[in-house]
């Protein structure tokens, strides 16, 4: 047994991006072969939100066409959903990899020139934008860009170009947050 004390566990560097991408590609390929579908993320949160709204205000949820699509016929819990379980796995896998690389930290990721509250406010705003954008585009970077990109889906490639376009066009205004 190693005698290293806990506090001196050093953060390990990240993986070479090409090999991480190769691993990610193999996971995606497995999903295609085993399930016949790609990966995703935002759909799980939509299902969770729809379920939560349904339990608080059932009439409101079933009356809304957007929620109704994610609620199903009520014969099984809407949370018994492929993406919900997949995203649970994402949390587990991310934690596992973070633990193995000693990268578990309760910190706020930001550049040196921005305060914590400002960064958190921007994170919340970015999340809200992402929620709207992902639902408008029928998917997020995982479901559309990654999975659809590998399937040569027309809409996914249009989407991907727009994501990079939007981000690069807006990056200059937010340089204080990151650089």
């Amino acid at each position, binding site marked *: *047994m*190693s005698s*290293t*004390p*806990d*506090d001196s*566990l050093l953060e390990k560097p990240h993986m070479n991006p090409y090999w991480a991408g190769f691993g990610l590609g193999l996971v995606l390929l497995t999903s295609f072969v085993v399930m016949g579908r790609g990966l995703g993320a935002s759909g799980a949160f939509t299902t969770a939100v729809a379920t939560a709204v349904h339990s608080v205000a059932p009439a409101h949820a079933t009356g809304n066409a957007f929620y109704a699509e994610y609620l199903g016929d009520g014969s*099984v819990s809407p949370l*018994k959903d492929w993406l919900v*379980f997949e995203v*649970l796995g994402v949390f*587990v896998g991310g*934690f*596992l990899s973070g*633990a*193995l690389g*000693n990268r*578990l*930290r*309760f*910190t*706020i990721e930001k550049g040196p020139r921005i305060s*914590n509250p400002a960064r958190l406010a921007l994170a919340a705003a970015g999340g809200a934008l992402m929620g709207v954008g992902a639902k408008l585009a029928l998917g997020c970077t995982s479901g559309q860009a990654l999975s659809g990109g590998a399937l040569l889906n027309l809409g996914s490639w249009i989407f991907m170009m727009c994501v990079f376009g939007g981000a690069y066009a807006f990056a200059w205004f937010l340089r204080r947050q990151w650089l």
Partner: protein
Amino acid sequence: MIEYTTTRHNPGVDPILHLWGWEIPLYLFLGGLVAGLMILSGYHILRSRWDRDQAQGHYVTAPLLSLALLSAGMLTLFLDLEHKLQVWRLYLTFRPASPMSWGSWILLFVYPALVASALLTLAASLPRLRQRLPVLARVSESLAGHNGAVHLIGFANVVLGAMLGIYTGVLLSALGARPLWNSALLGPLFLFSGLSTGAATLHLLSHLTPRAGEGSPGFSDALASVMVNWLRPPSAQDGSRKLEQADNSFLTIELALLALFFGGLMTSTLAHQTGARLLLTGPWAAPFWVFVVGSGILLPLLLQFLQAQRRIQSTWVPALLVLGGGLALRFILVGAGQASHWSVALP
């Protein structure tokens, strides 16, 4: 719940019995958790040749926590009873063939054992109360000074804890009308699941107990500083590793018992096999494999193994996962058990 006889000779059982909601599984979980805590703290009392100065932070709060949890469990059980005002009648008779009768009598003895164990550790767990009520402090000191009494309390906690843990499983397996529960392994399974959740609770306590002589963390952000506290290595250096190892052995035994449980059912009659398939491939398969086996047993096993090897940071995540897995096991077994039925074996 309407107090049922346990065979199919009553009209509530066919075609499906769905009377138990969230109360019973929660009670079984809390009962198992308390059983595990009793055994572990009883063992600690027996082993450490009781000395107040040696008392470890998280062990001294365990009996008090057990009392609170058991009371919460009893409340859920009481909520589930149909004839709430008749509950005293359980204590007028003792029927050796009835698990409910056994249970109510075991619980009657569990409380004094827990109170005694709480008194023993009172000096360390609630120093302020000790100053306010010198009577309690005197009782506590005289108990702790008496070697025989300390041993008796430790022993009683271990034995009653084991009985309580097994009883939570027997309560289900005695209900012969459900083939899924028709296994003698349910008692030991729930006992070891209770032990693992008990060890996880102690582990969690060791993370949450503030370490003496430590200044406020240097973070300006309140949220971050609270969370950073959770990530610190536990206050007791050695005890926590022992707990991790104990928890891992409990989890391994639990996994083996689960395998035996299903092995037994799958080699039995068609009704038993159909019952087992409810969990293995049927409507309960996803939560069973993911929450009980995956994130409830295998993942904490792996994380605690790596923590014990000092390969990764020690966090409270595995403890939380074990608790979640124990809760899921009770909910899934109670839910699927009620859906399993003998009549599938008919032509």
